[in-house]
C-alpha cells in the first residue's frame, strides 16, 4: 500500500525539520491563522489527545529505540503542557491513555485522528505559512472526536528525541553528526470545522540518553516552553466564535436549536408541505459511455 510513500515523506519532513532545529541550542516555530493570532478565535475548552513520542539512542555504531523513555515523555507532556497553558490563561483537559483504551469507540476515533493528522501534517510542515490561509484540515475525524469530548479544540502533539551517547558526541566532534536533541510539535485543531488553527514546535539540542531516561519532565518543560514562547495568551474578553463570520468557510450554526427541536421541526415540515423535491438531479449518461 502506498502508506509507505507517505511514511517516507513524513519521515523526511520530520528528519529535515528536526536536524535543522537540533543544530541550534534552542529553536522554535509558530504558525497561526489570522483569527487565532488576532485573538478573535480562542477555544474555551481544549483537550490534549495522548501525545506520541519517538525516542532513539544515537550511538557511534548504531541507533536504538528507547521505547520506555518514549512513554515517560508522553506522560510528562500532558502535565507540562497543562501547566504552561494555564500560565497563559487556558484550561486544558488531558485525555489519558487509559480513558482512550477503556472506550472502543473513543479508541477508534483517536486512532483515526492520529492517522489523518500524521498523513496530512506532512504538507503543513512543508508549508507551515499556509496555515494562515486555512489550507490544512483534518475533516470529520477531528469533528467527531471533538464532539465526543465536548471540546472546542483538540491539541495533537508529537515528540521526537535522540539521545547521543558519549561515543556519538565524540564522533560528532570528529567527523560530524548529531549531538542529540529533543523536539515537540503541537497542532491546535478547531473542533467545529477540523481546521489547523495553529502549529507550534520547539527543540533543544545537546541531549543525552541519560537525561531522556531520568529527567523526562525537565526535558518536556524545556522544549514545551520553547514551543509555546509565542503562543498567544488567552484574552478573557475574546469569546469563542467572535468575528468568525469574517471567515466565509466557517459555518455559524444556531446552537439555540437543540437536536430534538431540529428533528421535530423536520417531522413537522414533512407533514405540512407537499412532497416536491427541492432539486432534481440532472440526467447523466453512464460513465463508461462518457469515457469512450
Amino acid at each position, binding site marked *: 500500500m502506498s502508506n509507505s510513500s507517505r511514511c517516507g515523506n513524513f519521515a523526511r519532513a520530520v528528519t529535515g525539520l528536526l536536524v535543522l532545529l537540533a543544530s541550534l541550542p534552542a529553536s522554535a516555530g509558530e504558525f497561526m491563522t489570522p483569527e487565532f493570532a488576532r485573538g478573535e478565535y480562542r477555544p474555551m475548552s481544549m483537550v490534549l489527545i495522548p501525545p*506520541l513520542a519517538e525516542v532513539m539512542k544515537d550511538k557511534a555504531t548504531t541507533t536504538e529505540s528507547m521505547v520506555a523513555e518514549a512513554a515517560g515523555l508522553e506522560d510528562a507532556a500532558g502535565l507540562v503542557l497543562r501547566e504552561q497553558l494555564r500560565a497563559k490563561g487556558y484550561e486544558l483537559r488531558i485525555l489519558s491513555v487509559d480513558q482512550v483504551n477503556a472506550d472502543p469507540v473513543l479508541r477508534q476515533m483517536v486512532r483515526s485522528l492520529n492517522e489523518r493528522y500524521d498523513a*496530512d501534517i506532512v*504538507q503543513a510542515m512543508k508549508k507551515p505559512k499556509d496555515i494562515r490561509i486555512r489550507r490544512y484540515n483534518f475533516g470529520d475525524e477531528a469533528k467527531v472526536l471533538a464532539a465526543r469530548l465536548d471540546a472546542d479544540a483538540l491539541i495533537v502533539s508529537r515528540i521526537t528525541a535522540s539521545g547521543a551517547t558519549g561515543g556519538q558526541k565524540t564522533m560528532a566532534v570528529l567527523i560530524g553528526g548529531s549531538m542529540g536533541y529533543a523536539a515537540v510539535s503541537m497542532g491546535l485543531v478547531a473542533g467545529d470545522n477540523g481546521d489547523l488553527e495553529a502549529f507550534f514546535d520547539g527543540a533543544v539540542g545537546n541531549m543525552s540518553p541519560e537525561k531522556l531516561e531520568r529527567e523526562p519532565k525537565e526535558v518536556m518543560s524545556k522544549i514545551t516552553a520553547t514551543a509555546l514562547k509565542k503562543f498567544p495568551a488567552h484574552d478573557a474578553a475574546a469569546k469563542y466564535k467572535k468575528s468568525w463570520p469574517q471567515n466565509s468557510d466557517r459555518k455559524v450554526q444556531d446552537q439555540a436549536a437543540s437536536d430534538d427541536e431540529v428533528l421535530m421541526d423536520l417531522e413537522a415540515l414533512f407533514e405540512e408541505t407537499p412532497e416536491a423535491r427541492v432539486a432534481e438531479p440532472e440526467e447523466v449518461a453512464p460513465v463508461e459511455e462518457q469515457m469512450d
Partner: protein
Amino acid sequence: MMNCKSIVLGLGVASLFCCLPAAQGAAETEPKQKGEYGQVDLTADEYHLIETSEEMHDQLERRGLRHSNRRLEAWMQTIGQSLAPEPTDFYQEYRFYLLHDPSPNAFALPDGQIYVHTGLISRLQTEAQLATLLAHEINHVAGHHGVLAYRSQRKKAAAGIFFSIAGALAGGWGEVAGLMVNVGLVSSVYGYSRELEQEADIKGYERMLQAGYDVREMHKLFEILGQDFEGLNPRIGGKWSTHPDLALRGQYTAELAASTPEETLAGLRLGDDSFRRRVRPVALETVRDYILADYPKTALELARYLVTEDSDDAGGHVATGHSYIALGARSEFAAEAQLTDKEKKQQVKIRSKLTRDELHAQAEQSPEAKTIIEHNLAAAEAAYRIALELDQGAAEAHAGLGEIYLRRGLHRDSARELMTYLKLRPDAPDRNIVMDDLRDIAQQIKTATGE
C-alpha cells in the same frame, strides 16, 4: 512496508525488525548469508533487543494498536504454534498478535513476537496463505535474523567510522573515497537483509510441508502483496530494497511447490474452511480504515471481495456503498495497475504535495468528473439498497443514502434517511455531523417553501 504510524512508534531501526512488506526489488537466486538456527548467546549490549521488543509490545497496547479480536489472535496462535520450532534460547517465545493497521504488512521481533496487520490478514483467502506468512516471520525469529542484522550493522558502521576518519584526515580525494566506501557499506547492509528474507521464504516452505499446509498457496501471498489498486507503489531499485522482488518470490515459491512430489501434495491441506468467516469482521473494519486513509480503490476491491464471498451479508454491500462514495470524482475504472513506474512516482509526488481536500478538488476539475461522481453515487445507492433489502436495520446504509441524496440536492429524501439513521443509531459517533446536515436541510426546505 512501513507507514507513518510505524515510524512514530519507533520502528525505525531496520536491523531490529524484520518485516514482510510489499516493497519490491531484485534478488539473488541463492542466498549467500544464512541465519543461525541453533542457540545464539547475546551480549549484554545485544540483550537490549529483547528488552526493547517487550517494551514495544507494551507500547502497541498502550496506543490501542493491538486489535481487540482475541479469538482471531488465539486462532493465529494455534496455527503459528503448529509451524514454529522449539525455541532455542530462553529469550524466545513465539506469540502471535493482530495489529490494527490497514497497510499489508507483518513483522517479527527478536523475542518471538509476530504481528500481522489487519490490512494483510483481511486480504488473505485461505488458512494456508496465513500459514505462509507466519512461517516466514517464524524463520526470522528462529534464524535470529534480527540479532544477526544488528551485529552486521554494527560491524559495518564501525568500519564506516574508520574510513570516514581516515578519509577526513587524508582530505581531498581521500574524503570522497571514505564517503564512497560508506555508501557501499550501506548498500551491503540492505543486501544482507534481502538474503535473509529469501532464506525466510525458502525455510517457510519446509515448515509448511511439515505442518501439512498446501505449499501451492505460498506464491499467492506474494500476488496479494503485489496488488496496487491505487497506483502508488513504484518498484524500489534492487540495491535499496530490503526484500527480493515480489514477482521473483512468487516465482521461486511456485517452483518449489511444483517440485514437490504429487503424493506429498495430495496430503496437504488449505486449512480450516472457516478462515474467511473468522477474518470477515476484521476485513469489514479494514474497508473503513482504507476509506479513512483515502485509499478508496483498495477499499472498493476488498468490499467487492466481501460481497462475492457472502452476498447475503448486508455489511459487505454497505462497505461497497461507502467505498463508492469515497471515490468521489475518481473513476473505479482507472487502470492503476497498468501505470508505468514513472507515472506511479508522479502520482506519489502529487499526493505528497497536496492535502486530501486539494486532491479531491483536483479530481473534480477533470472534464468527466461530473459523470464519474454520479456513476459512483448511483453505484453506492444500488449497494445500499441491496443492504437494506437484506437488513432493514442496516443503519449505515441509511446514513449513506442520506449523504447521496444530500449531494444530489434531494433534501427531503436526505433528511428522511439521516433521521432514520439516527433513530436506529441514537448514539452514532458522527451524530454531530449528521445533525449539522439536518440543520442545513431544515433551513433549505424552509427557504424553498417560503417559511
